[in-house]
């Protein structure tokens, strides 16, 4: 288990502290599974739909294997002590996502309404770009603390990214939510990138201000109340989230950014009062905006009574609001899947039609892989999040801790908001399941996110450079001839 080369070190209890195992071989073994499982799934879809192993099986398997291999080699070379689970888990999700996107490409219904057909090759291309960005992060970001220098540039960058969809001519309104921009024929979701950039800004900012925010406070009813002027930052972030909600009409994005900030603020200051404030402010904001924004109201209605919304949509009700049958269709897809699912390629989740392979891709997993598949997918997401938080715990510097928890927390919130929305637990939002859903922005940004987490965990688990402080070890070296 040890990476040391000393053959007689079986009794040395100090070795572990010096050289943590790199775990790269574990990662490689897991990666083999992470590639093999989607390859089998791909063959399964082909057999179910066309009664034959799909022609692209070899190239697809090789493609995914090659990408995973490149990523693994990059980790081995540039981040040898990184967490061994993150890369295989992300690869597995990405691979399964590709399979289901390809499966939906085969749907005649989606082809007829131009919702799918050639999405899988593009998604493979986006995956390649995502992994390229992942490798670039590992090569050029030698130490995550470098990002600290760009705290305020990040702030500006994040604001620009968040505001882009509102620029006339650039922004796109897709089914009511304005979280997209269109550049040269590509639709980009800047919010996915803003997630990372904002985490950098929050981490840098909170690291500097944490003492002021934590210490100067009064105690009231068991809570430390912050001073009025210290409320400034949270108020600003809250205001921006509200603006996103009002102008981009997307509850998910808004909730994600505000939630991420509250989590990081709480970790930075260790003050529970921020959580209480955060919850209160989100509730006030969400209810306040929902009281006058028709798009949000529709989403809430569709959540409370999806059947009614389905019937309104079917009847073609024209009352100035876009009624969508998607929420009900997604529930039917999950329910029809039952415990074990219909089997890949044998469901009818294409009935969801619009966004079946992006926002609603989880419903296809639910129908075709059943409750068993959904629980597995959710646990994989849970594992990624917990590995991210483990990285935050292990990180030695506050900036790294804050950045890791920010990224992991945002990832967890996104999974909750999207999966909860599709499963009818909370109102639907316009975000997508990381790695599973079709969409370049999402795949590329999330690979970058994993890259940063891997960098932080490598720094955290890297053995201390000077083992000389251990006298026993030195003695052994000297005495032995």
């Amino acid at each position: 288990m040890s990476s040391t080369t000393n053959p007689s070190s079986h009794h040395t209890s100090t070795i572990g502290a010096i050289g943590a195992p790199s775990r790269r071989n574990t990662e490689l073994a897991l990666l083999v599974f992470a590639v093999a499982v989607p390859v089998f799934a791909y063959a399964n879809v082909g057999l179910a739909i066309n009664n034959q192993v799909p022609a692209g099986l070899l190239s697809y398997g090789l493609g995914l294997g090659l990408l995973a291999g490149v990523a693994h080699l990059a980790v081995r070379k540039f981040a040898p002590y990184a967490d061994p689970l993150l890369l295989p888990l992300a690869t597995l999700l990405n691979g399964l996502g590709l399979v289901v996107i390809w499966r939906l490409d085969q749907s005649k219904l989606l082809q007829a309404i131009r919702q799918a057909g050639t999405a899988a090759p593009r998604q493979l291309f986006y995956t390649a770009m995502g992994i390229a960005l992942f490798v670039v992060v590992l090569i050029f970001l030698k130490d995550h603390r470098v990002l600290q220098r760009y705290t305020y540039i990040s702030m500006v960058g994040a604001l620009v990214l968040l505001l882009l969809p509102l620029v006339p001519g650039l922004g796109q309104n897709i089914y009511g939510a304005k979280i997209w921009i269109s550049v040269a024929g590509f639709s980009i979701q800047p919010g996915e990138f803003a997630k990372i950039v904002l985490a950098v800004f929050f981490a840098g900012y909170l690291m500097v201000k944490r003492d002021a925010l934590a210490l100067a406070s009064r105690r009231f009813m068991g809570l430390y109340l912050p001073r009025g002027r210290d409320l400034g930052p949270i108020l600003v972030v809250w205001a921006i989230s509200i603006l996103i909600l009002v102008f981009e009409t997307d509850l998910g994005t808004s909730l994600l950014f505000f939630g991420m900030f509250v989590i990081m603020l709480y970790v930075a200051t260790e003050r529970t009062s921020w959580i209480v404030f955060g919850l209160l402010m989100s509730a006030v904001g969400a209810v306040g905006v929902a009281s006058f924004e028709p798009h949000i109201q529709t989403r809430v209605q569709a959540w409370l009574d999806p059947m009614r919304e389905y019937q309104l949509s079917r009847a073609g009700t024209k009352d100035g609001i876009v009624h969508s049958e998607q929420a009900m269709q997604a529930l039917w897809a999950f329910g029809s899947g039952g415990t074990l699912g219909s089997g890949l390629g044998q469901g009818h989740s294409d009935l969801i039609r619009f966004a079946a392979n992006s926002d609603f891709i989880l419903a296809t997993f639910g129908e075709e892989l059943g409750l068993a598949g959904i629980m597995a997918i959710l646990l994989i997401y849970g594992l990624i999040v917990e590995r991210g938080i483990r990285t935050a715990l292990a990180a030695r510097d506050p900036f790294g801790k804050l950045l890791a928890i920010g990224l992991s927390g945002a990832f967890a919130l996104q999974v909750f908001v999207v999966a909860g929305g599709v499963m009818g637990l909370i109102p639907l939002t316009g975000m997508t399941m990381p790695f599973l859903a079709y969409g370049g922005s999402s795949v590329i940004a999330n690979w970058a996110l994993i890259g940063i987490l891997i960098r932080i965990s490598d720094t955290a688990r890297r053995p201390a450079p000077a083992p000389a402080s251990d006298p026993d070890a030195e003695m052994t070296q000297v005495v032995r001839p």
Partner: protein
Amino acid sequence: MNKPLRRIAIFCGLLILTLLIRSNWIQYAKADSLKNDSENRRVTIARYSTPRGDIIVGGSPITGSTETKSSGLNDLKYKRTYKNGPMWAPVTGFASQAYDANLLEKVEDGILTGNDDRLFFRNTLDMITGKPKQGGNVVTTLNAAAQKAAYNGLKSHGKGAVVALEPSTGKILALASYPSYDPSSFAGTANADAEAWKKLQKENNPDDPMLNRALRETYPPGSIFKVVTAAAALENGLYTSAEQPTDSPLPWVMPGTTTELKNQGDIPCKNATMREALRVSCNTVFGKIGSDLGNEKMLAEAEKFGFNKEQFTPVRANASVFSDDMNKSQTALSSIGQFNTATTPLQMAMVTAAIANDGKLMKPYMVDELQTPSVDTLEQTRPEELSRPLSSRNAQILQSMMETVVKDGTGKNAQINGVTVGGKTGTAQHGVDNKEKPYAWFISYAKTGDGSSPVAVAVVVEDENANRGDISGGGLAAPIAKSVMEAVINSRK
């Protein structure tokens, strides 16, 4: 910072746990209700994913299935087809991809789609051996020749219905309604199907072709109801033979009123025997019998024949009506088939069949057998006695009276060479002050040499083009009844 980090870890774990619970809720607890929700398109897709089983008449199917052109927007693979759709529509009903199903197609949907629990074991076996799921067949009791005779007869006379039964078993031999519709015309989901459906709706088509007149329409029966009144008189011992003179003054003023009950023309009804009264169709004689027996006894007899109760053949037939709260004069009118009395053609065929079957009323049914996809018998319908409205002796008295009607009374048009036929004509008045054109009724049965009766039939014709004088059961309805009886007798040879 590690303490809050651990708490955030727990928080994130709780988020995932919440999602896990939710997925269990919708995919386990609620799975079945979501899966089988009738609005869930998958239910329809599954129903049409395999060829539907067939409805069979006389050994050959009157339905079929055809593969639809598969395109992205049409996810239903097979479509129902019908042979001779309009003729069989009152039996089969329709099974439409867009408009659900009705009648036999609806009642036996489980068998036809193969989803019935009784096919579960076989389906599981098929799934294991990789065979596609198939629907079972429904074998009917109908007689194709009789159905054809009934339908063509109605077609040449206008709106109406025919029901023919086998008296000894209750098998439905013919069940025709006109005007009819072709269920093939809207079996699919294309625009043409939607238009065909729209055109057939009552609001767009005053003839209401989708109304199943044989089972779902109640008509005033008029004079044919007199056989029920005669049965009540015999059963209650008011008169004990067909030859006994009745106590029937002429003119007769209904009790409690100053209104005379009129006969149709100047016919010899004064103190006539029941045989004579039935032959010339005396209103006064049978009106007074009803009035003498009273509401209660008349109601009891009518209910023994099946009135005031829905029948399930297994397709539902409306209940025919004989009221239970009438005074003497109203009972008198009801006993000659007027006032509130209303009946389905099926009900009058049941009355006729019970008389022809020596007083035993058999439950009418149209499904002889349910078959598995591999043509094994899944369920065989056994004839079932419903009631005994009259004794065998009284039934034979009534038979001889009805045979007189055909031999030298109002029903001469139903005579068949070499076959004994008993019948009764009816001309039912309806509308406010009886202004509308009356319905022409005819009920009859045929008896072969050995005294058994192979067929009893009820015919109603609502002919709006005929002159009022022409509409009499004997003129319009009897020839149809005759051709149906002939078809049944010929097909037994």
